[in-house]
């Protein structure tokens, strides 16, 4: 009677009533999701989602009634209108992610059926996956692991129900699923072929990153000096050049408009024919280095002078500058090979260093001589006078360079503001500047003298991590210098900043700036981290770990996969094609682990049911049945079967059977 009453009650359940699901876990998942998408979500959205989930929690826990349709409609309408007003239909990846976050938080208000909760969990999993487009740190990956576990918990809860607490085993099945998945994940990750993108997607995000820009007006680089963010990390395969020779060329700024230097658009010929140096791709020689570029949303490649590309994602641009195939919206890894500088008779010009730079095509040579007509008149006049007293160009250059140290020029991160003719004002009035001022002025002076020259923007130096043997190049290592083409010598690198503040090149910015207190003044924590040795040690260890993470996991790609597969199977199947090798490793690995997991699970279930002796006995029976005609009939006791074996033509088998039967009976009657 009680049973039927119960049934009646469950049938009377209103369809609108909330069913049982772990609401607080859903809120927890949404909260983790907010943390994952924090970097690119607008602050109003985060607050809004927190508000909605709080509202949902209150209605679920206290009022125990679903939100009414009218109210839900209003909330959805307001949310979408605000969202559209904010994003204005600019489709970007972060907008899509934010939309999913908003939509799933609204879904929280109308979870009526099991399938709603399932859908919610699936959307959460997808959001979790695409959060890797924005952040790829190790901690973020851990966060996503927790998220997966929470989502799986919700799905488990939906199936096992409220009885979950009483059945600890179902928890264990959650972890069993996750741990047993491990080896298969590893095999797939290592050997699943990395396919080229099926179609190109507008990938630009709205989030701003600090870093280089393709134009430089004085002061820009000084701003970068306030940032301790990483630009990239480098590890050398052989001996690294000295710190003072680490000039990371980024881009050529060759167009001067009287105030700022810009990169002129690449010439037509290079747009079409920029190609990779395929012969060198997998041959890394002695002097190669690997750069791990932080996301910059740009395609610029930072490379040492006289480098050649050694990975397929780098393209050669004009004048020895490189470019990435796709913008670095994620951290990007590339390899370069460089030529060690040959010992040469030193040039008399201070800081000058001869370069092996690929010439521009003859039609583009004018780019390095372009000057604006009517700007900086005082500099033009000054140069006209100098040209009279220094007819030899090398002497002129020598004079100009020494002039920076002879005269009272100062190096400062906070130079005074300049008017419209900035070179005039800097050279003759303020005489205080940052590398951009010096490089820009020198290049302008040289061009006025008819010497082809250009400003190079990039980074100089780097922090050496001794334990793991790599360099960290920070944003504050951003630098600008000059390249000039001297008659009979060719292209040389000139760094006027080194004349003013030699410490900048020899020891880095923090030493060069010294007591000025301008270095990293906006980020006291980062500044402290550099100065307090314990913190500095910790910072370097963390960076080391992150670098390893990025190198081995985040940037594991096609090239790494090929060399790994080659290492594993190169000896065994020297003639197999790449595809064959992938098939062998992927198929073989998955099969192997599947079978082992299957056997493991099966064995665990099987092993609980029988004692060891029983297991041996059963295995023995299986062999007897398989290889002889002795098969134990159903219902035949071990003793009767033993007699049958003994009477058969296999005396040796009978002996073993007898032993096993004895043990079996002993085991059974002992209890």
């Amino acid at each position, binding site marked *: 009677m009680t*049973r*039927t009453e119960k*049934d009646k009650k469950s049938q009377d359940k209103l369809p609108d009533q909330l069913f049982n699901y772990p609401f607080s876990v859903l809120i927890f998942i949404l909260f983790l999701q907010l943390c994952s998408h924090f970097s690119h979500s607008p602050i109003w959205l985060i607050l809004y989602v927190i508000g909605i989930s709080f509202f949902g929690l209150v209605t679920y826990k206290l009022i125990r009634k679903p939100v009414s349709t009218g109210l839900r409609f209003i909330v959805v309408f307001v949310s979408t209108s605000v969202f559209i007003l904010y994003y204005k239909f600019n489709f970007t990846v972060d907008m899509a992610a934010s939309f999913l976050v908003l939509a799933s938080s609204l879904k929280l208000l109308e979870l009526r059926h099991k*399938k709603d909760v*399932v*859908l919610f969990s*699936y959307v959460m*999993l*997808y959001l*979790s*996956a*695409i959060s*890797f*487009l924005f952040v*790829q740190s190790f901690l973020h*990956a851990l966060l*996503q692991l927790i998220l*997966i576990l929470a989502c*799986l918990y919700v*799905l*488990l809860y*939906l*199936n*096992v*129900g409220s*009885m979950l607490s009483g*059945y600890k*085993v*179902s928890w264990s*099945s*959650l972890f*069993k*699923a*996750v741990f*047993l*998945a*491990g080896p*298969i*994940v590893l095999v*797939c*990750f290592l050997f699943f072929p*990395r396919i080229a*993108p*099926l179609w*190109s*997607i507008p*990938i630009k995000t709205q989030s701003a990153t600090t870093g280089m820009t393709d134009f430089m007006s004085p002061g820009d680089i000084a701003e970068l000096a306030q940032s301790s963010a990483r630009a990239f990390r480098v590890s050398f395969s052989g001996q690294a050049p000295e710190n003072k020779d680490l000039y990371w060329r980024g881009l050529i700024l060759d167009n001067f408009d009287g105030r700022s230097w810009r990169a002129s658009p690449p010439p037509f010929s290079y747009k079409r024919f920029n190609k990779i140096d395929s012969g060198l791709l997998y041959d890394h020689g002695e002097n190669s280095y690997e750069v791990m570029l932080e996301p910059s949303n740009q395609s610029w490649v930072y490379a040492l002078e006289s480098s050649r590309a050694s990975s397929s994602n780098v393209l050669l641009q004009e004048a020895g500058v490189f470019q990435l195939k*796709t913008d670095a919206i*994620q951290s990007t890894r590339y390899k370069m090979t460089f030529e060690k500088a040959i010992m040469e008779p030193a040039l008399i010009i201070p800081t000058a260093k001869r370069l092996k730079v690929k010439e521009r095509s003859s039609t583009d040579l004018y780019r390095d001589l372009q000057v604006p007509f009517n700007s900086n008149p005082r500099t033009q006049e000054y140069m006209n006078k100098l040209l009279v007293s220094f007819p030899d160009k090398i002497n002129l250059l020598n004079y100009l360079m020494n002039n920076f140290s002879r005269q009272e020029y100062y190096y400062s991160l906070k130079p005074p503001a300049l008017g419209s003719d900035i070179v005039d004002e800097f050279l003759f009035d303020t005489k205080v500047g940052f590398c951009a001022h010096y490089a820009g002025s020198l290049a302008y002076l040289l061009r006025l003298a008819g010497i082809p020259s250009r400003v190079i923007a990039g980074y100089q130096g780097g922090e050496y991590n001794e334990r793991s043997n790599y360099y960290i190049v920070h944003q504050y290592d951003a630098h600008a210098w000059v390249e000039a083409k001297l008659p009979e010598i060719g292209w040389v690198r000139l760094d006027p900043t080194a004349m003013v503040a030699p410490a900048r090149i020899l020891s880095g910015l923090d030493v060069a700036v010294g007591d000025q207190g301008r270095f990293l003044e906006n980020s006291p924590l980062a500044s402290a981290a550099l100065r307090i040795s314990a913190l500095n040690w910790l910072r370097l260890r963390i960076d080391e770990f992150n670098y390893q993470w990025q190198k081995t*996991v*985040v*940037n*594991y790609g096609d090239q790494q996969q090929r060399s790994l597969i080659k290492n594993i199977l190169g000896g065994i199947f020297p003639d197999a094609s790449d595809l064959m090798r992938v098939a062998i490793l992927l198929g073989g690995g998955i099969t192997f682990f*599947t079978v082992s*997991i299957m056997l493991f*699970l*099966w064995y665990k*279930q099987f092993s*609980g*049911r029988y004692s060891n002796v029983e297991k041996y006995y059963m295995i023995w029976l299986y062999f007897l049945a398989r290889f002889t005609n002795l098969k134990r009939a159903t219902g035949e006791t071990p003793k009767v079967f033993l007699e049958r074996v003994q009477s058969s033509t296999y005396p040796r088998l009978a002996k073993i059977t007898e032993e096993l039967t004895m043990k079996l009976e002993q085991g059974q009657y002992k209890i």
Partner: protein
Amino acid sequence: MKSISFSEKISNWLSSRSIRKNEFILSQKNIYIIPSKAGFAFVLLIALMLLTAINYQNSLIYLFTFFISSVFFISIWLCFLNLNGLRISSYEIAECFEGEPCPYPIQLASISKPALSLGMGINEQPIIETNIKQDSVCQHSMLLPAAKRGLHTLDRLRIQSYFPFGFIVAWTWLKLDAKVLVYPKPIEGTRVIGKPDSLSLNQQHLKSEDLTELKPYQQGETASRILWKQYAAKDQLVIRSHEQGGYDSFWLNWDSYEAIDTESKLQHLCFDVLDLNRKQQLYGLDIPNVHISPSSGEQHKQRCLKALALHGLNDKSVFYD
């Protein structure tokens, strides 16, 4: 020897699987497994993630995708092993009255591992949802819509489980020999006036012990009726076949009711059997083809009710078992 054709093989195979049995142990031979709707949606989700990973060339999204697809893959095994080894049996015959839902008795036993989120029913909509702990036995009554009186066997039992994450459903179809004996609905009937009261038709007083017949004791009969003297002398449990002296024993007769149709008569008889049993009186049953001499007790009641339930039906196997 002639080789059997393919279709014959198939039909042999099918009939070999559909043998009605009292007990089944689930194994790879009778468990079917397929992704559920949610599972197919999950596969779509994986495909979408893989596409994202490929198009954005993002190593961590690859890792994420492989992770959840491996969990999906492992859950196939967990789903299968959850059902594997489950012992389903039904040996007892349950009983109920016409008009009540029929409680088919099903016993579930799981050895060495639990079996979780099981759904049992006769189609995809489970009627019972249950979890079974490790090394335990669970008795369930599956309530199916009311049936007419008689002996009913469960049509086809489906046991399914979406364990652990709902991506995969494992199920089995069993022809379990679960039986319910449905008695006629007890309805009080008016007796035919003029005829001697059927209830007191056979009021006879047994005068002495000598007149009583002796018969061997059967389980279920009241222990107070055992002749302990006989037991001491002959080492045999013996009872008197008729309750002696002092009590009236009634005969329930087929024709003593006003109602004409068989079903109504059976219903009235059923009511009286229950009524007399409650009053702890002696009664006998006299209906066409069946004659049960007066007695009392649970077993006697059930004998009578069985006779009423199966009256006129072919299946007498329960009655004479």
